[in-house]
């Protein structure tokens, strides 16, 4: 009996020993962490979900019935085309680190076709987890979804009057010559704005300001819709708008919390502030709606939530709860007046308020990041509120630069496409509806 006991205890110790040995030796070299990888794979899928069906339905519901398929098609084809562009050379151009005098402005072709990236290579990029990393290819995929959604946001500006070929060529050129360089400047470790200290956690500048300015430019250059009478045309399917907004909110968790490139405390903070900024902005918009027009509208609450999400995007890794509430409230107030008054006053037809909501939201959020960034979240970063004037100035420089670059480049690309492929739909196409004339399809049949 006693012998059996001793033998079992010895066997038990032998079984436990290796585990004990493992816990005492922590990994101090960069390696693939499965927990972080699992989360970022999901985050990548969430950001994909934001473009289709999120943005597709959000914008699709806001246009007239005769144009809804056109909007959905634009989102879908961008997902396809820009994804291919990204892996063929876009990623390399944006995140490739080269040497030489061009390095601060653009990457190289070292990673074209994702050459030289093995499936088990670790990502060169991380935020707070230096050793627990995700696979390099996952970083490529995650960034791919950002590269896709940015040109898709511009759709809101030229909705209902752009022709298909012109749209595809424009979006592709824009992605290559505007998105990629800007993303390189702000997110690549060799980018000049990154080195200056620009804070853009998940793309307030790279995505929202970038697309928002392009939206304003194209809206003005393309001209108004034929039936535009100075006010928004009623949406044809508000349930779609609601679904789209909800999907965007849901996917935004991947957009912001995923930008931590890990499943850690910083990621969860981004999750929290994203959610609260959206909630605050939504409620604020409802309040303004009720003060203004006496009735809370569904389109209003959806717009408010999206504005809040856009504004918190650059700040998600640098602010806490109070910052989220402040950003949510301010952006809602500003964007409400942008879409309700400023647009009418200046007379441009930004059909779905891509500039009014995303552009302005991004600007407000990026500037407020320079004010509200707190060392309580990441000790290395602080804003004006904590005495860091430099950070505030850097944010202004970055915002101003991208406004200028995106504006000028969009004008050039627009003109180029207009002169070669043609960009505006004909009067006939616009009257009958783009679904029938450009795609030969009708969204909702009334008979069978």
């Amino acid at each position, binding site marked *: 009996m006693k012998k059996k006991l001793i033998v079992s205890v010895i066997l038990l110790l032998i079984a436990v020993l290796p585990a004990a040995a493992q816990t005492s030796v922590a990994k101090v070299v960069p390696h693939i962490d499965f927990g972080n990888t699992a989360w970022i794979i999901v985050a990548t899928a969430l950001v994909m979900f934001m473009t289709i069906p999120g943005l597709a339905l959000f914008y699709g519901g806001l246009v007239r019935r005769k144009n809804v398929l056109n909007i959905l098609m634009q989102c879908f084809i961008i997902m396809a085309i820009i994804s291919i562009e990204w892996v063929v050379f876009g990623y390399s151009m944006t995140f490739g680190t080269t040497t030489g005098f061009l390095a601060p402005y653009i990457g190289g072709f070292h990673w074209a076709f994702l050459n030289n990236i093995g499936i088990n290579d670790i990502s060169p990029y991380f935020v707070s987890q230096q050793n627990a990393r995700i696979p390099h290819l996952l970083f490529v995929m995650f960034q791919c979804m950002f590269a896709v959604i940015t040109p898709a946001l511009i759709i809101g500006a030229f909705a209902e009057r752009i022709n298909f070929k012109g749209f595809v060529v424009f979006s592709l050129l824009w992605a290559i010559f505007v998105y990629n360089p800007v993303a390189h400047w702000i997110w690549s470790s060799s980018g000049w704005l990154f080195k200056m200290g620009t804070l853009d956690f998940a793309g307030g500048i790279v995505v929202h300001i970038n697309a928002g300015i392009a939206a304003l430019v194209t809206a003005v250059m393309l001209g108004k819709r034929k039936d535009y*009478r*100075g*006010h*928004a*045309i*009623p*949406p044809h399917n508000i349930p779609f708008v609601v679904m789209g907004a909800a999907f965007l909110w849901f996917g935004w968790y991947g957009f912001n919390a995923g930008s931590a490139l890990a499943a850690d405390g910083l990621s969860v903070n981004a999750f929290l502030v994203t959610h609260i900024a959206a909630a605050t902005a939504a409620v604020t918009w409802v309040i*303004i*709606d009720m003060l*203004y*027009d006496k*009735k809370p*509208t569904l*389109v*209003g609450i959806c*717009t408010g939530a999206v504005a809040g999400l856009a504004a918190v995007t650059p700040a998600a890794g640098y602010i806490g709860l109070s910052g989220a509430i402040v950003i949510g409230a301010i952006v809602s107030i500003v964007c*409400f*007046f942008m*879409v*309700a*008054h400023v647009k*009418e006053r200046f007379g441009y037809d930004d059909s779905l*308020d891509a500039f009014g909501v995303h552009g302005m939201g991004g600007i407000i959020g990026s500037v407020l990041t320079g004010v509200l960034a707190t060392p309580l979240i990441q000790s290395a970063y602080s804003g004006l509120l904590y005495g860091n004037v430099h950070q505030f100035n850097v944010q202004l420089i970055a915002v101003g630069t991208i406004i200028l670059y995106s504006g000028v480049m969009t004008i050039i690309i627009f003109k180029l496409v207009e002169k070669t492929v043609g960009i505006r739909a004909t009067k006939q196409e616009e009257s009958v509806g783009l679904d029938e004339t450009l795609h030969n399809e009708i969204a909702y049949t009334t008979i069978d």
Partner: protein
Amino acid sequence: MKKIEAIIRRAKFEEVKEALHAIDIQWFSYWDITGAGKEKEDMVVRGQLFESNYIQRRMISIVVRDQNLDKTIKAIMESAWTGELGDGKIFVSTIDETYRIRNGQSGPDALY
């Protein structure tokens, strides 16, 4: 036989239907219709207030025997009335012939 086409407010439809049932006019067609008229509707999209010329109404179409014409019109007029601009219109036209498809019957008796 006369055809009565009445454009009435959507909110008044149930009242009109009940008034017609009360005088034994049980069968008619109806559909939603959009019109342009003197009335303007206040609309708001994303904080922008504007007036819209597109007015939503409902159209009822009834074919009745000549002797039922007056009471039908009276019933519709009374039940669809609110006194506000936009109450609607009633049009009366003459029907040359009516047929029942099931048995080929014609004339006023082919009506219900």
